[in-house]
Every structure is written in structure tokens, then in C-alpha cells.
């Protein structure tokens, strides 16, 4: 009897793509759309988890695009001041809206009202990357001066990158009621002062997330027509939610929204791909194996798994060195005792149904 699941590859069936695969061999990547070649320039941006990707890419050598490396500073100082953390010194970019506003500002289409905030030590911080200068700036003028240099680096990055790896972090943010600016941290946390009359909480919808992400990527593509984009969703749960519900529930909302937005863009644009780092770390195949004690931070082993798959699938020439490891074969798995019509698709494929 013919049916649409006949002949599909192993990875499309749970029994063969997960249940009979050792955790560290779990590989949810399928059909990467492009391969990074020697000499290609790869830029990184995104949330906390993107730092891991960035660090590993940098350690791998030639491909990492460093548009703002702090070359004027001694090497030891660069890291502390977040030079090299990402391809430019923008700090964590948690939401697509933040990236879109950064783009607009870098290319002269937007000027936020907030220019500099004082921190609790009386020093000055950049409201849109408040932690890049650990000791703060001497003056508001210094903030502006450094931001101008940063925006120039952002322009260089978007204009010269062959690839942008953007890790989507969350959907909750704080926004200026005055001009709609999105802050990476709530006002008052690392600088400035929270004022309900001037600041509001926002939790972006799928539509808003998708729209902002598409706007910035299309704009970047117009300026740099060969740019290709690899989207990922950070597996790191929210540290806190401002919604009146459990942080775990807010996490699942945020990640679902980001995942759908990424999926929609991949569906629409062949120069955008999705890399499933979120699934590697959070899905049941690895079942919490890669979280640290706080069940939030991703362990080095988890990062290693993600980056092993990234290089294997996306970096030209690395896959061939890997030892091909066969599946464990057909093994008898315990039955759940629950009637699951879905499982009939798998049975039908193997000729049992």
C-alpha cells in the first residue's frame, strides 16, 4: 500500500532519528542550504548563547569577521571590554527589533532619544549596550563618540559579511514610550532610571518578531546582495519574565515565537537557513544533559555538540574528516502502553503496518 511516508529518510522518524541514536550523536540538521568556504567572512550577533557560537567560530580561525576588534587596546583589555565577543561591539542583541533599530541607526535612518545614561557609580553608559564598558564612560560625550565608532563598525560588518549567524534570544523587552527604542536591559538595571511614564514592557508577538527580523535581513541583503543568514534560537531560558506567570511558561512562549519567526523566513527566502541549536540542547533527545546545575546555562559539552554539528554541516571540508557512525540498528524499545496513531506511520514505513 503506498503512503506519503514511504521512503522518507531516517531523520524524519522519531524511532530512527532519535530513539535509536546515542545522545551525543543526535543530529537534527538536515540539508544545509550553504557551506562556509575558506576565506568567507562570518559575522555573529545575538543573545547570550551567540557568544558561544562566536567564541568557537573565532577559535576556528580565518572565517570569523571581526569588524570592531579593539586593536588600539592591549589584548588583555579587549575581552573585558567586550571587543571580539561578537563581530562588532554591540553586546547581546536579544530581539530582532533591537537588531532592526541598530541597523536603522547605523545607516542613518534613526536616532534614538536616549543617548547616555548615568549608572549607580555616577559614570555614563550607552543605553543600547550598557555592559560593554565595565567601568562606564567618563562623560556622555565619550558615550556618543564611542557609539559613532561602533556604528561605523556595524556598517562595515553588514557591508562585508558573507554570512551572518544571528541567534534569537527572547521576545520580552523594555521600550521607550517616547520613541519606541528597545533596550537590551530594563532601564535602571545597569544604568538610567526606570520611569513608568517613559518606559513600558513589551512581549513581542510572532507577527512583530517576524516583521522586524525580515525588515533588517532584507535591508542588509539590499546593501550586501550576497549576504546569507543562518538563524538560530538560543536554548538558554529566560532569566526572568515580567509577565505574571512562571518563567518557564514565558520561556516556552518566547522560544516558540522565535522559532516560528525563523521558520517563516526560511520558508520565504532561500538565502536564510535555520540551524537547530535550540533543539540540540533542549529537546528530549538530549534531555537536559547539556544544562548546568541552574538548568539554564548551557554546559561546554552542549556547546561542543552544537558547534560540532555546525562545523560538520556548514563549514566546507570539515565533514569529510568525521567518522561515519552507523545507527544502532533496529532495537526493541519499551512500549508506552498509549495508543498512538502517529506511530503507525513509522510502522507502515518499515513494512509492519
Amino acid at each position: 500500500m503506498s503512503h506519503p511516508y514511504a521512503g522518507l529518510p531516517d531523520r524524519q522518524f522519531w524511532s530512527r532519528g532519535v530513539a535509536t541514536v546515542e545522545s551525543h550523536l543526535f543530529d537534527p540538521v538536515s540539508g544545509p542550504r550553504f557551506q562556509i568556504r575558506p576565506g568567507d567572512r562570518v559575522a555573529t550577533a545575538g543573545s547570550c548563547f551567540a557568544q558561544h557560537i562566536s567564541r568557537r567560530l573565532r577559535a576556528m580561525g580565518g572565517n570569523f569577521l571581526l569588524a570592531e576588534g579593539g586593536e588600539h587596546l592591549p589584548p588583555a583589555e579587549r575581552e573585558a571590554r567586550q571587543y571580539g565577543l561578537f563581530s562588532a561591539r554591540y553586546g547581546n542583541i536579544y530581539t530582532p527589533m533591537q537588531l532592526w533599530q541598530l541597523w536603522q541607526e547605523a545607516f542613518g535612518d534613526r536616532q534614538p532619544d536616549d543617548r547616555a545614561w548615568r549608572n549607580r557609580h555616577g559614570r555614563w553608559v550607552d543605553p543600547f549596550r550598557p555592559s560593554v564598558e565595565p567601568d562606564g564612560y567618563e562623560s556622555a560625550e565619550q558615550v556618543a563618540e564611542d557609539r559613532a565608532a561602533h556604528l561605523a563598525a556595524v556598517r562595515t560588518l553588514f557591508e562585508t559579511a558573507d554570512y551572518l549567524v544571528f541567534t534569537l534570544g527572547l521576545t520580552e523587552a523594555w521600550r521607550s514610550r517616547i520613541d519606541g527604542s528597545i533596550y537590551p536591559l530594563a532601564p535602571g538595571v545597569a544604568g538610567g532610571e526606570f520611569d513608568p511614564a517613559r518606559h513600558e514592557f513589551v512581549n513581542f508577538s510572532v507577527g512583530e518578531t517576524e516583521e522586524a527580523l525580515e525588515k533588517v535581513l532584507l535591508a542588509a541583503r539590499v546593501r550586501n546582495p550576497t549576504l546569507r543568514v543562518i538563524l538560530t534560537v538560543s536554548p538558554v531560558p529566560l532569566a526572568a519574565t515580567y509577565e505574571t506567570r512562571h518563567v518557564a511558561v514565558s520561556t516556552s512562549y518566547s522560544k516558540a515565537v522565535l522559532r516560528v519567526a525563523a521558520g517563516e523566513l526560511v520558508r520565504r527566502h532561500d538565502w536564510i537557513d535555520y540551524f537547530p541549536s535550540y533543539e540540540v540542547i533542549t529537546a528530549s533527545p538530549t534531555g537536559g544533559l547539556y544544562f548546568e546545575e541552574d538548568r539554564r546555562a548551557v554546559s561546554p559539552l552542549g556547546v561542543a555538540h552544537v558547534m560540532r554539528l555546525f562545523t560538520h554541516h556548514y563549514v566546507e571540508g570539515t565533514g569529510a574528516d568525521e567518522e561515519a557512525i552507523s545507527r544502532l540498528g533496529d532495537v526493541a524499545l519499551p512500549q508506552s502502553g498509549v495508543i498512538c496513531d502517529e506511530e503507525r506511520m513509522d510502522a507502515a514505513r518499515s513494512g509492519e503496518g
Partner: protein
Amino acid sequence: MSGPGGDVLRERWLVVWNCQSFGLANCIQTLARDIECEALDIWSFGKALETESPQHWRAWDRIITMGEATALPGFKAADMPPFEILPPLYFSGYHPDCCYVLLDGEPVSGAVVGPYHSMIALAAYKEGMTAREASRWYNATTYGHAGYFAHWPMQRQLMLDSYRERGIDLSRLFRVVGRGACFMHTIDHPRIPALFEVARALLVARGKAVFENVVPPPDNLSATSWPVYPEIGERLAVAGSYLFKPANLHKPFELVEYLERSLAFFSQWEKQRLRVFLHLQPQLQTIRKLMRGEIA
């Protein structure tokens, strides 16, 4: 199986393996509802073959043994109860650098981790290095050249195949027991969860009733343990280290100290007298070539 009075007649099994005998027998004893299981190691078995009558062996209903036991002088299959050959666990996937070192053909023991040695340390000794110099060769580049990363998939397949040939599905050892964990203390000393899984898989394959959720027996092979090097562990979802636990002691040595002791141990003998088993010699040679700069 019930006796005339309704009491359960338990089968009596004997495990004749190497140093893993007692662990496996204890696991079978723990897991099997209707089996009493005892153990002899192969060396005691060899001696007993010389002194015991055929009647002695018929006290057991079944013997689980290793191929080498059936080649012992005095072993007569006709005198034995039903027996089946099952290979003890040998798995270097987590510890590809761990090896035996042969002195004039015989394994030397008494170094830091009992009879186990680091092949890189041996190569460094043969190349005249200090401990600190040797320590620099413990990295992913060396492991890649020496083929260390290929051990795990190769050994896994060998182990699965050798058990599958006997109708035993050992995949759960890799899917479940090895999930985020190293199931071997050394290349030939499994941790007790691994033997527990072998016992479970064997009993299930032979249609024997097993208890679920029963506590495993103590681990009698934990006296010696080799570290999973971080670069190896990273690829296997196992947290690694360079901490070498001395046999029967609980204070590990860090890499350089381990190497100092290891090199001092080797220095009792001339370099050419120390060798590794034949099948490992290409690896040793590759590491030495790498150290000499003959491999880019």
C-alpha cells in the same frame, strides 16, 4: 520453574570471565528472579580444571564463559554443563591513550595507575622528553593524528556486533547507560552499570525474568580508573579531565605530576625494552613521528 512443593527451583549459573567475573555474576544474581549465580575468574578456573572432577562442574546448570577459558588445558566441553561464550567488555573508546606497556613481552605494573599507562607518556619517554614537554602533546591535534577519535565508533560497532551475533542486543549500553557518562573505568574494566546492562541484556535475550528498578551491586573494579581526556569527552558528551587516580588511592595526580611519575617509572628500563601490543604499535609510532616533527 517449580519444585514438587511449589517452591521455586532456581537455576545455578557460573560466570567464568576475567576480572569482570564477579561483577557480572553479582549483576546476574541481583537482576535474575530465578537464578543463583556464582563466579570464578579464568585463572582460578584453570587451576580448578586440574583438580576438580567432571561431577563438580555439573553442579551448575549453565556456564557463561569467555573463549580463552575453553582453550585451557583440562577443559572438556563434554564434562561441562551447557555453556555459552560471551566476550568480556573491552572498550577503548573513552580511553584511547590508555594501554599496557610490555617489558620484554610481559605487561609491567606498579606505575601510577596499576598496570595501565599512557601511550603518549611512553612515546615521550622514548623521545627523551621531560614531563612538562610531554604534557604539551596531550591535545586534540595529537589525538587526531594518533586516531584516538576513531576508537569510540569502531569499538562500539565491534562490541554491538559481537553481542548481536549471540542474539544479545547491547544497544541500551550506548543509548542509556552511556548517556552523558563514561561506562568504563579503563580499557578493560567496566563500571558496574555497564556490567549490569550486560547482565540485563543477556537475561532478557535468554528469556529469563528480571527484576525492574533493583539496586546494582557494588563496583568491585573501581580501584583503578583512567581519566577521559577533555578533548575526547567533548565529542562523547562526557565531562573530561587530566586527573590520574592512583590505584587504590583517592588523591589524583594532575597531568604533569602523573607524567613525572610515569617517566620515572619507565626510566628503570632501556627505551627499546618497553613496547606496546602489536596492534597499537602504529599509533605509538605516529605519536613519536609527530613529536619528532616528521608529521606536519
